[in-house]
């Protein structure tokens, strides 16, 4: 019985991920519009965009190989799978025991690898440039990301996300400098990994600056819709990963169905705050030069390392 229940929860969580990711992106855009004094398109605009893209025909380059056609599905699938690992509403997830946080980072890395390949596959200059930039950033962001999650793992003595949520959410509330450093590093990495402002700008197609947009420039129709949706899910996933590792209070325990509505409400509140915080960072900062990005990610790595060191030194 409890097994069926946990599979149901898993399904519910994936549904939540698929439906809530565009709303979260819409929320971020809406707050951004408010912050910049523009009229908003509403938080459901990403749905309409996706719908429009799904109805359009695909224009495929003549020399596109199977990698180019296969990548949108892989990226989308990897994002859904990642959503099945991270405890969003409840820690009672069957997949969470099979894959830990290292597997999660590997999933993100795999989808990025294929996106970069697809960017180069067509052979346009922008695709290659975008791929090269993306890999430069990835090679710096990934070690920092691992260091940051390892710090949380150290504090909770496990790399399984469910375990981490349980230990940190139900442990004694103490001030931990290591987790504060890890959170700081995580925020910086989130900005880089999801292509937000100081590193990349998600709304521009200016050829000199684009990174992620450069890689997916040749996609159209259904493929583009999948990639866009996966991008929204990635932002959502980083937000819930941050919530699960650093602010896990309220995520329902195993077998506790009554806590689910409360968990959902808390999740919405936390996500709304996270989105507003993201906008605050984005409107407060200017996009940095590409050659400053290694320094930005270097400081993320520094924070993560300091977090790990201060776990040993101070706790």
């Amino acid at each position: 019985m409890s097994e069926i229940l946990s599979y149901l929860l898993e399904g519910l969580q994936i549904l939540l991920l698929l439906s809530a990711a565009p709303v979260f992106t819409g929320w971020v855009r809406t707050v951004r519009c408010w912050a910049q004094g523009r009229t908003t398109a509403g938080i459901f605009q990403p749905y309409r965009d996706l719908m429009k893209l799904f109805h359009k025909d695909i224009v495929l380059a003549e020399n596109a190989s199977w990698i180019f056609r296969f990548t949108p599905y892989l990226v989308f699938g990897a994002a859904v799978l990642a959503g099945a690992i991270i405890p969003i509403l409840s820690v009672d997830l069957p997949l969470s025991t099979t894959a830990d946080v290292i597997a999660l980072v590997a999933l993100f890395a795999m989808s990025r690898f294929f996106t970069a390949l697809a960017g180069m596959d067509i052979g346009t200059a922008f695709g290659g440039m975008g791929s090269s930039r993306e890999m430069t950033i990835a090679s710096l962001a990934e070690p920092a990301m691992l260091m940051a999650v390892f710090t949380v793992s150290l504090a909770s003595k496990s790399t399984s996300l469910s375990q981490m949520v349980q230990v940190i959410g139900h442990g004694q509330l103490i001030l931990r400098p290591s987790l504060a450093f890890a959170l700081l590093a995580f925020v910086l990495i989130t900005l880089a990994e999801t292509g937000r402002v100081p590193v990349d700008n998600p709304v521009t197609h200016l050829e000199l600056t684009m990174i992620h947009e450069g890689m997916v420039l040749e996609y159209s129709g259904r493929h583009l819709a999948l990639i866009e949706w996966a991008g929204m899910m990635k932002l959502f996933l980083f937000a819930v990963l941050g919530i699960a590792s650093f602010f896990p209070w309220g995520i329902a325990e195993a077998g506790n169905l009554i806590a689910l509505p409360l968990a959902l409400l808390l999740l919405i509140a936390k996500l709304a705050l996270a989105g507003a915080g993201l906008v605050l960072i984005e409107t407060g900062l200017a996009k940095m030069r590409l050659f400053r990005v290694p320094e930005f990610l270097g400081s993320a790595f520094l924070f993560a390392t300091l977090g790990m060191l201060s776990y040993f030194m101070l706790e």
Partner: protein
Amino acid sequence: MPISFAAQLNSVLAALILLTAFGLLAQRRIYGLLHLFAWQGLFLSISTAVVGYAAGQHHLYISSILTLALKVIVLPYILHVLIIRLKIQKEVETLVNIPATMLMGIALVIFSYHLTSPIRELSTLVTRSTIAVALATVMLGLLMMITRKHAVTQIIGFLAMENGLFFAATSATYGMPLVVELGVALDILIAAFIFGIFFFHIRTTFDSLDVEQMARLKEED
């Protein structure tokens, strides 16, 4: 406020002091350096007060206030005036690039953790875990003095080193006797004035505050 909470608070403040020490290494703008230095002094002052509370050592309150007045207000103000008078609002020039400096800094933190681990084993004070951070702050100040070209940034590095020493004294032995601390505070203040005079002399002699120019101070054969 229970003692265990005070110890946690002190750890957080130690972490913040370490963070500002790294911030000083990473900062490119000279005003940013001054702000970070003032923040470091503020964290140090709060930490001293917290330790004073946790250990019941009331003379630490006085040194906390002294730190607040001197390192958060007076010294940054003097340096600020100097920067305006000398017209050096430019970006800071470094000898080693910043990411490499950061990596060296991390190595220094690990080294000081290793070096202080025997003391931590022996000590029974509430603050024993922050000794490593204090030593690391001293080392990072030293690293800053080594890797910067300009005299003003080197002085900020020197003052950050002094912050580290002060922090080491509070965390290793609950602070030095008050007389010594007053003496050190006075010394620092006098030093800041003397540095100011020296800066003007260096600049009038070499038209720059780049200390590498001092290599020219050789007798002609």
